């Protein structure tokens, strides 16, 4: 195990900056997820840590050592690729033993360590198969087995689950979590799936356009998003984000709709200020169908016309236009709602978020 430190890390492709001077410290034994939309620089960052991509500026430190110019083999890392990258001409056993064979470890040690890894990942029956004879989930496990056999300082995962179907993905997610509990290690995990990041990571790094938008625990990034982008990216369904103007105690939306200005922001904004009003679907609901705790401190009610519903069994997502955009509300203990019907909605204003219209940074409560 080791810490990984990024200092003003830059990657340039010609004139294009793919990674723009990011700073990040990953602690010993920590599971950190880099998450963001495609092209945000998360994979490039991971590949620079791995040594597969040249570093244009700044430093990568593993432990206390600057590794900028070390080849991948000298960094004592393991990587699980999106494509698994299993060696097709070798059996599962040979795939897992490959790194030890290259390192010229004694035969009995190789056998023992491969057996350990295959026990942990339930690969014992598959050891003599070729990768082409395995299913997607099995290949994924072999790729992880190959990574843990090395006992590296740092594990790197590059979107390891995105080639699996939804059910298998959930299953493997649990398996990765269990693996991390069993094999304590520093993990850097790249994904574009915020659910994966939320469920797996100790801390989440949300990236956009080559820079870091926010670093925080899943709780922090969910409850106190630092920017409008983070607010929209984390959480499913996404937070309702509506452009608005602050007018004497009101949040005024387009088309004449308004909500009261949440008390906690009373002193943080001034009249006439342009903002973005954010509220999670969990905090808007047809009256009487919300969380029991909701609507305690400050709430508002509005009559909205339902446009679409998405029943999920235990809850129903209700889509209704308000303030010029389509809102999503989460209805617990759902009852059937036909489109077109007018429904009384409760807005839990204590849970609202405000973001600056310019730049999108969160406006702190004052």
């Amino acid at each position: 195990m080791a810490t990984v430190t990024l200092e003003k890390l830059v990657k340039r492709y010609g004139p294009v900056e793919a990674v723009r001077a990011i700073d990040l410290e990953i602690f010993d034994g920590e599971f950190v997820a880099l998450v963001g939309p495609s092209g945000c620089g998360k994979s490039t960052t991971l590949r620079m840590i791995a040594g597969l991509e040249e570093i244009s500026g700044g430093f990568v430190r593993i432990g206390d050592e600057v590794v900028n110019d070390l080849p991948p083999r000298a960094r004592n890392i393991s990587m699980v690729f999106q494509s698994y990258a299993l060696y097709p001409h070798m059996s599962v056993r040979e795939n897992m033993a490959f790194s030890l064979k290259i390192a010229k470890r004694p035969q009995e040690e190789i056998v023992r360590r491969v057996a350990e890894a295959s026990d942990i990942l339930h690969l014992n029956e598959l050891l003599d198969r070729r990768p082409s004879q395995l299913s997607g989930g099995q290949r994924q496990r072999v790729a992880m087995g190959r990574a843990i056999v090395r006992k590296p300082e740092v594990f790197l995962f590059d979107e390891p689950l995105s080639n699996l179907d939804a059910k298998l993905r959930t299953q493997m997610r649990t398996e990765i979590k269990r693996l991390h509990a069993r094999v304590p290690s520093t993990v850097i995990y790249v994904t574009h799936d915020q659910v994966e990041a939320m469920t797996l990571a100790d801390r989440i790094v949300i990236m956009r356009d080559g820079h870091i938008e926010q670093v925080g625990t899943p709780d922090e990034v969910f409850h106190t998003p630092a920017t409008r982008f983070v607010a929209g990216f984390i959480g499913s369904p996404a937070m309702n984000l509506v452009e608005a103007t602050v007018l004497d105690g009101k949040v005024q939306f387009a088309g004449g709709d308004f909500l009261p200005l949440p008390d906690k922001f009373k002193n943080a904004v001034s009249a006439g200020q342009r903002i973005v009003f954010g509220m999670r679907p969990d905090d808007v609901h047809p009256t009487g169908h919300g969380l029991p705790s909701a609507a305690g401190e400050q709430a508002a009610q509005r009559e909205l016309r339902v446009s679409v519903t998405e029943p999920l069994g235990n809850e129903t997502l209700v889509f209704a236009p308000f303030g010029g955009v389509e809102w999503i509300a989460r209805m617990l203990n759902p009852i059937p709602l036909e489109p077109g019907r007018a429904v009384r909605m409760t807005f839990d204003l204590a849970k609202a978020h405000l973001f600056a219209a310019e730049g999108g940074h969160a406006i702190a409560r004052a």
Partner: protein
Amino acid sequence: MTRNQSSRRLRFFGRIAHATGLFLVALVICLPGAWIILNSLRPTVEIMAKPAIWIPKSLTLDAYTAMFSSVGHGGVPVWDYFRNSLIISITSTAIAIAIGISGGFAFARYRFRGKSALFLGLMLTRTVPGIALSLPLFILFARLDIIDTHFALIVAYVALNVPFTIWLIDGFFRQVPKDLAEAAQIDGCTRWQAFWQVEFPLAGPGVASAAIFAFLTSWNEFALASQLTRSVNSKTLPVGLLDYTSEFTIDWRGMCALAVVMIAPALALTFIIQKRLVSGLTFGAVKG
């Protein structure tokens, strides 16, 4: 008759037509080879007979015994020719493959200025008919005083084969995902080890096919060899066939016998390499 029955009948006839078609095509392809083998075993009279005699009256190995007997008794220096052919073909193939692997890998993996122009240029060299090169090559080689040496033919054949081997091997390296070499490097390989341990074995079938092709080209080539060789020092088997033509006669039987001797090792080699080639073809490690 129900539609089901008629469709089954149709499929049955379709299958027969298919088999017949395949048989005819195979016949056309195999006939010349069979004809050569047949002719090497029977007298010229029968070979030249019109209408053709399909079923031979008697078969003898006279042509083969004559061929291996001493010069003057209808013999030709088969062993010399064989040795020359072997040395020239194997050496030129080995060199062409070595260059082909390096070049193919470079084209598949690296980006550099003028890459596509260079690649196109290599391909264009293949549009030049080999025979058009014979006079310039002859003059050049004569000046260099390397006519009638193994070296001359090896150089010529390497030049002839390299564009093709690069092109073919490039295609195979392209099919080996980059991730594999990267995974190998993370697993502790140097770039060089990653190449030999992972990328090369996976492109192996391509290298083998390129080798077969280069070998057969050199082994069978006649036009250039007939210009650049003079004596048993460097004459190859295809040029040796000409020994059976004299001023007034052509010994078709002897020529066919030598052709068989020429085909046999090439055929054997191709079979051996192809066997290995197919057994190594188990792709499918990446994605599903």
